[in-house]
């Protein structure tokens, strides 16, 4: 079973995302901001990260930049999952090394489609 780390400051989003991921046969864990997510990946690198953009302490983009500099940090597929939904943000995410981009609100079909896109579904 592949591991997905859900990084989002909203407990509700984390719960919904976890439920969808479990239905898609992933094992999901959570972190509530970029800093906590960095600690989580340092102890165990997941197969994929579902990443919010706007979070307190450390936002998603900063987390991603840090992640990609870690040993093994290139390995996990990173899928942004954010309300930011304009071409500028998507382009910045791509340049920072994101693998896919989900615009909120999302549903199971979209999550499945995007995880298929990165070869994990």
């Amino acid at each position, binding site marked *: 079973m592949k591991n997905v780390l859900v990084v989002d400051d909203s407990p509700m989003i984390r719960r919904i995302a976890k439920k969808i991921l479990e239905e898609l046969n992933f094992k999901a864990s959570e972190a509530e901001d970029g800093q906590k997510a960095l600690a989580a990946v340092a102890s165990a690198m997941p197969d994929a990260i579902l990443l919010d953009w706007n979070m307190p302490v450390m936002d998603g983009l900063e987390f991603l930049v840090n992640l990609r500099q870690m040993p093994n940090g290139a390995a996990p597929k990173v899928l942004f999952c954010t309300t930011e939904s304009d071409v500028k943000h998507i382009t910045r995410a791509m340049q920072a090394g994101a693998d896919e981009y989900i615009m909120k609100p999302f549903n199971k079909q979209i999550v499945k*489609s995007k995880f298929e896109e990165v070869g994990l579904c």
Partner: protein
Amino acid sequence: MSQAFAALQNFLLKSSGLSLDREKQYLVEARLNPVIAQAGLNNLPELVARLETDPTLAKKVTEAMTVNETFFFRDRAPFEGFRKAILPELLEIRAQRRRIRLWSAACSTGQEPYSLAMILDEEARRLVGWSVDIVATDIAESVLKRAREGVYSHFEAQRGVPMSHLVRYFTKRKDQWAINQNIKARVDFRQQNLMSDFSHLGVFDVIFCRNVLIYFAPEQKRDVLARLTRALAPGGYLVLGAAESVIGYSGEFKPHGENRVILTRRGPGETAPARGAAV
């Protein structure tokens, strides 16, 4: 089964090939109730009685009963097959003529032909000097209207569309995403019922006929497949939906390599197995 239901079954079979399941009577009513109400009628028998004489109402009934679900790059494999197998082969076979014709034969809201158009755009460098037609048809004007507009909801634009394609081929308009003009211009949308003669569309190298024949009654399916065969150039390709096959309905096709939903037309010398035999 009520008389009205039987009459409706008969109407749909003749007008669109659609086979109505007797067990699904409740579903039929749920779908037709809005049409009944909108026409100021009271029930199914009243609706059925009007079908013969009211073509506008008849069209609404057909549209209410057809499934329009679709998404970009649906099932992936057929589109990868198109890019990696079909297109390179056509570039060789058609090198003299330098023209390729594709048909999306039940295109719904346009995601299927636009997916093909995006692939052609990505492969543009190999297609310099070539002309590629994409003809996209459907029975329903309502879906064709949306297809021609090419504006997709937040959900539709994310389903099947990789972020790189979203950025490259779509433009955001409020909460929706509009397909860009260069992709739109590649597709020629036309109304066409598969039950009617479609020989005027000409001959194609590739026909995508996906997730439509699955709703047809056997006899209608056989008839459409026979005419699709004639609309396909020798050695042309027929691409089906993930759950579909022509086994038992046509002996004119054989699978193309590993991909079960991509078929090629048998050449004149190749004998077709008897009807019902595996292809």
